[in-house]
């Protein structure tokens, strides 16, 4: 492993994680294609490195979100029961579904997510707080966060929790099947089902990603699929990038985060459809 290769791995991971951290999603989804396409790293090492990077990214960017009171910790642990259960089902299902089907499904999910995020709806930051009835109150999940752009605290309510749990289960399942971080599914799920402010969705998703990834990462680690010379520089780059991304998220507006997210979703969907229709470089993932 030369100095040049390590530096390249570090730089690529830094860029991927800065973008990922800003959007509340992990860098794995970028790292696997970049490593296999441009880096000629074999697919198993790429996935192993990407899983470590997913955890590093999530842990490294969590602190500023937590201190900024953007992360809803109680909601996160509750939703993690669904994401980890989904991941567990995914691990059990691996190998029974053809990879090309999986990429097609993922592509469709990304397109639907992008469309939902583009759809106009009332900004929860401006909507009046509705009466606190229903299941969410028994779990005491409603909270508030300080919005820098608005310059005041914004109270929000967690809505439609059962639907959110179902979507989280699906997010955990699909991400385990595809071997990537699941922020790209968690953020739209929280946005559409629970109707949270996008910054709270991003921060809470980022917080949850490490726990969702932990089970599969543990299995990879135990089996020796994580190759240190690849995973090491990638993990280091991810930490640096994730911290950078979190800083950027706090100082830009909700609408810009939403637009950037939609652009990335569409780009990834195109990538997934290419993989579904016979681009062999991506086939080995699942």
């Amino acid at each position: 492993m030369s100095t040049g290769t390590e530096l390249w791995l570090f730089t690529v991971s830094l860029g991927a994680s800065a973008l990922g951290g800003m959007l509340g999603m992990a860098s794995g989804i970028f790292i696997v294609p970049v490593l296999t396409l441009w880096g000629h790293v074999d697919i198993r090492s790429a996935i192993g490195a990407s899983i470590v990077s997913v955890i590093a990214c999530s842990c490294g960017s969590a602190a500023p979100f937590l201190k900024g009171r953007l992360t809803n910790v109680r909601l996160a642990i509750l939703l993690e029961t669904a994401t980890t259960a989904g991941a567990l089902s995914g691990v059990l299902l691996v190998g029974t579904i053809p990879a090309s089907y999986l990429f097609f499904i993922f592509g469709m999910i990304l397109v639907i997510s992008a469309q939902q995020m583009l759809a106009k709806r009332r900004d929860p930051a401006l909507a009046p707080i509705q009466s606190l009835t229903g299941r969410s109150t028994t779990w005491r999940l409603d909270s508030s966060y300080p919005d820098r752009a608005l310059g005041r605290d914004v109270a929000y309510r967690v809505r439609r929790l059962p639907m959110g749990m179902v979507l989280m289960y699906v997010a955990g399942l699909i991400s385990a099947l595809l071997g990537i971080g699941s922020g790209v599914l968690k953020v739209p799920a929280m946005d559409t089902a629970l109707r949270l402010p996008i910054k709270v969705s991003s921060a809470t998703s980022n917080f949850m990603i490490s726990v969702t990834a932990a089970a599969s990462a543990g299995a990879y680690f135990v089996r020796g699929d994580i190759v240190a010379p690849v995973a090491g520089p990638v993990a280091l780059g991810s930490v640096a990038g994730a911290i950078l991304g979190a800083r950027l998220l706090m100082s830009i507006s909700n609408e810009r985060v939403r637009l950037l997210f939609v652009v990335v979703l569409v780009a990834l969907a195109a990538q997934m459809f290419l993989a579904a229709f016979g681009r062999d470089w991506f086939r080995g993932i699942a």
Partner: protein
Amino acid sequence: MKPIRIEPLLAGVLNVGTWLASVVIAAGLVLSLFHQRTPFLPGTQVVTAGIGLFVLLPILRVILMLTIFLKQRDYQFAVVAAVVLLTIFAGFAIGILAK
């Protein structure tokens, strides 16, 4: 009982854990780069140890949350945290069995 502010505590643990794992990985990479060996371990094994720390960090975070919920006598959420922890361990077990 004084309520514990959970967020700064979690932020601290994740921060320290991330730094620790990163420093171990960086040290291992420098060692392997110059093809040197520590008196105990080759560089790549130091990197692997750092990666192991990263894998353990989220599990430590869930254990910490479980402890805090128990201390606060918030048994509803203590059960939730315990379920998450058990699910992660089940994932490890599947990985080991599928070896």
